[in-house]
């Protein structure tokens, strides 16, 4: 996607967010005797986001220049999607799978995704899990 389309899409997105914010602000109680209530700031910021978002969309540059370094890098984006999926699953399985099981799997998954060899990935994943478990669980008393 070109920078122009990207800015237009993001500008419209921000304007929509501003619209939702302003609408939410209208539903909040009004203030008394000219003093603004809880809805004042959301409405103010919401209107600001609408104006700025539409301004960004309207002023989006022309041409086909891309924001994405060296164009769209399919490999990099695929790796990011895989890593984010792994992180999402890690968070979703927080209470279902113990830390000592899910963490090395996550680390191994990320290392393999970025192209590290199997043996190094397994070794670092196990050592790092033990160290992180020691720091968070034993030292900081965080229930993982």
């Amino acid at each position, binding site marked *: 996607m070109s920078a122009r389309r990207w800015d237009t899409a*993001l500008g419209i997105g921000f304007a929509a967010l501003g619209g939702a914010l302003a609408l939410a602000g209208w539903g909040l109680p009004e203030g008394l005797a000219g*003093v603004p*209530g*809880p809805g004042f700031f959301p409405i103010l910021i919401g209107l600001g986001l609408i104006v700025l978002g539409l301004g960004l969309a309207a002023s989006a540059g022309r041409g086909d220049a891309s924001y994405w370094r060296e164009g769209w890098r399919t490999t990099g984006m695929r790796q990011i999607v895989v890593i984010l999926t792994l992180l999402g699953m890690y968070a979703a399985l*927080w209470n279902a799978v113990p830390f000592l099981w899910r963490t090395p799997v996550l680390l191994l998954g990320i290392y393999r995704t970025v192209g590290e060899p199997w043996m190094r990935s397994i070794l670092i994943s196990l050592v790092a899990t033990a160290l992180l478990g020691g720091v968070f669980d034993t030292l900081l*008393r965080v229930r993982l």
Partner: protein
Amino acid sequence: MPIFDPVTWLYLTGGVVLGVVFGALPGFTATMGLAILTPLTFWLPTDQALAMLFGLLCAAIFSGGIPAILINTPGTPASIATTWDGYPLAQQGQAGLALGVNALGAFTGQMISILVLAVAGYPLAAFALRFGPAEYFALAVFGISMMVSISSESLIKGLLMGASGLAVSMVGLDPIMAYPRLTFGSPALIEGISFIPVMVGLFGVAEVLMQIYARVPHEVRGFGRIERIMPHASELRTMAPHALVSSLLGTGVGIIPGAGGDIGSMIAWGQARRMSARPDTFGRGSLEGLVASSTAANAAIGGAITTMLTLGIPGDSASAVLIGALLIHGLQPGPMLFRDRPELAAELVMLLMMAAVLTLVVGLLGARPLAWVLRVKDEILWALILVICVLGAYALNQAPVDVWVMLASGVLGFVLRQARFPMGPLVLALILGPMAESNLRRALVISQGDATILVRQPIALVLLVITAISLLWPLLRRRSD
């Protein structure tokens, strides 16, 4: 007294070691290190936690100069100007001397700026005690606007980020009437969105994703032999005036909200060139140029912390994260800190000095081993940083919702940074949002709804005028061009 506490020194050393890693690896910044480390310090006593964070900050800014000198790649934005003379020196076989001058310059800059904080802190805080709600509102708006006007090539993108930060800061109970807002009926959002997971996502996860996306195959970064580290007395005499002037310039630039060590070091380098008897050597391996850039880059730390501690507004992204750290330890930066807890303000100054001293020791004694940090593969660190981000975001409140907030912030930060949106204004607005809103509404309560109270107070008026000028300046300049 933290100076006599060996445990504090231990945590300080830990912070310095982490700071060296975050500063020396190109792409990893002091802000990122602070954002990741802050949640982990929640369980520590305040002085030990701050020792660790200050150690990380001082060491990261210093060690950003190591790759700048050895491989011509700045480790942090503050060390961009260090490449101009540091790398030519390394090419001439004087890498050790350049690393030594960088360490000495960092120490001088940090110590002088901390002394400025110690001397100017109380008068500045006493002045700020005169501030009422109108002045605080104007100060918050001024802080956000400075960050917006400086940090982005597009004013409208900076403003959008600032407005988005303000929007996120409104989630939870309204600060005056305690009425729930934008919580979508979720009890998890009643207390608002914690800014620590947002910062960890924006500066930690997003940065790693940026590096994975745009990565180049790893190469072992080579550099020459490291021999003499300490400069001769004659060289020290030549560098001393530049170190002093650059320290004051760097501190002054650091005090301005939004301006940091990157701008300070470039200004100081230019000033040193004008002052030098041999300006033609600048950019070709001048020790004067190197000391000016490294001194000013590090002096900006004390400048930014002066603004943060006395006025309660962050001078740059790193001090925005530090404000978060102070808040989770129950400390509210601002003039009241100096009035109500002067002993704590003095302790913070002492911790900063300890961090500067330890950074110097590590910088001089560890010049050779520090250079080996550059050989650590980015791929090894990415996975570790991502997992630490997840665990750190969770650990603070032990709430899974924070992990999701952090991941969402990371994805958002990745997408927006690719589209050249600056993250600084968002974080600053997230922190200063409640201050801006509550003080604006308090001012209107006092004036019974009369908005002219904002321009009837001279300090507020001056701050709002500067805000307007800083935001309109790019537009006026474009029109005049």
